[in-house]
């Protein structure tokens, strides 16, 4: 029974619960949420991705940030250099998402992992390859397009 049928039958947008028969009011006001996020401070990250580069920010004080951030809490400056990360490291963990959120339901089950890159920073990314975790597994970071149609990055065993 959908809400229109319910209004016809019950007089209200009310549908009795299948199991318990308890009356449920089906909200007639829908809210669609889709956010608008500023990436102005990390523009260069996307310019880099387009060129096949994985960029991080590096503060004058030496601290490296990935995901890149604009401000440094160590020295409280906001003057970052952009540096290119080496796209290799060691896989530290892995999962395969079988039960997907609605907004990822167009995917088959997908794997996601975290690797520690040789530069010392960690990266969370899609994982492509056999979903098996073993100590010291080397991976590379590949910049690819997936279903969404824009560049993203994957961890791939070497």
């Amino acid at each position, binding site marked *: 029974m959908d809400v229109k049928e319910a209004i016809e039958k019950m007089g209200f947008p009310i549908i009795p619960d299948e199991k318990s028969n308890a009356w449920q009011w089906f909200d007639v006001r829908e809210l669609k949420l889709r956010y608008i996020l500023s990436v*102005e401070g990390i523009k260069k990250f996307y310019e880099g991705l387009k060129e096949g580069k994985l960029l991080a920010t590096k503060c004058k004080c030496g601290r490296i940030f990935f995901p890149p951030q604009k401000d440094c*809490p160590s020295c409280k400056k906001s003057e970052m250099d952009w540096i290119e990360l080496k796209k290799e490291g060691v896989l530290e963990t892995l999962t395969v998402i079988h039960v997907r959120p609605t907004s990822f339901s167009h995917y088959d089950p997908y794997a996601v992992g975290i690797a520690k890159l040789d530069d010392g920073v960690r990266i969370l990314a899609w994982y492509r390859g056999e979903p098996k975790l073993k100590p010291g597994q080397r991976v590379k970071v590949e910049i690819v397009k997936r279903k969404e149609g824009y560049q993203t990055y994957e961890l791939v065993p070497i």
Partner: protein
Amino acid sequence: MTGVAIIGVGHSVFGTRRDVNIPELCWESMKPAFENANLEPKDIEFFVVGNLGIWSSELAIPAIMAEYADLAPKGSMRVEAACATGSAAIRVGYTAIKSGLADLVLVLGVEKMQESPNPNVIELIGRFGSYFWEFENFGLTFPGYYAMHASAYMMKYGATEEDFAKVAVKAHHYAAKNPYAQFRKEIDVATVMKGPYVAWPLKLFDCSPITDGSACVILASEKKVKELGIEEKVWILSQGVGTGTANLSKREDFTSLASARYAAEQAYKLAGIDDPVKQLDGANVHDCFTAPEVIAYEDLGFCKRGEGYKLAREGQTYIGGKIPVNVDGGLKAKGHPIGATGVSMAVEAYKQLLRKADKGRQADIKNGRWLAHNIGGTGHYAYVTIYGLEKR
């Protein structure tokens, strides 16, 4: 119990902040607060974030900032009390110190409302009374709730839309002098009166805008104030807090907020205030719309019930009048980033009492006491906080 002092403050520029994401917007007020207090993130023992969210992407802002600003592994939580969220955050920081569980607490208020399109924001704020009995069934909006107070007030006391317009004119007058304000432009009564109705009798210029912004205060115990040798500080003298019914139809009256009167009574009692106009140097009141500023004058005892509109009409809440109110531009013109508003009021109290306000909007400080009146929903939550130069 220890006294609790504000020893550092920071304030982002309020407005449409498409240039920053959530952590960047937070850092904009946290950085000056650290510098002001001469502290590092690692010195903070506990932190609390006031944020309403829903309209913005990041749900776990305390964790986001634990990472971005090096506050991990210190404890934290998010608090919410609708538009009084910032003051609720201050309460959690205040009691964390007063209870002896921490000596240094950071309180951050933030909202990035413009991560959603305006119609969604309007819809979401309208859900802040009784979702089912007011919004779902009768389409009430947030301006609508306050409009019902404005119209009841006008009917009972003979106030006019022009009286309310004067509140907006004052707000813009002072916002023009506040570099952190969203609307830095003077307006006149005619402009307000020409505006389209949002919810009759409230018009466009009677309403606070949709704002992105953050504000931050660092709180310290008496012991810590001494230990750090802090000279510039403002004490939290007291805070009163009240709650109202969800449904407006469960209230006795629409010309006053019972929760605000209750909160004010507590705050005054705890701070030893019996004649607020004489004992305070000024106040920030919750002018999410113009009419509620007038009602706030009465709920706070700045005048008798039914006479608030006369204070507005006669300009008695400008600097030099009976009591200066919202001389930072108020929610109306400084902007109203929900979670940040109560913290922004604390920043203003700090600036006013320490005579650091901008030129043309510094009140005369004689008593060393400033009041912040922060309302969530339509009196659903009421927080009244009194700040002072001298510990009581």
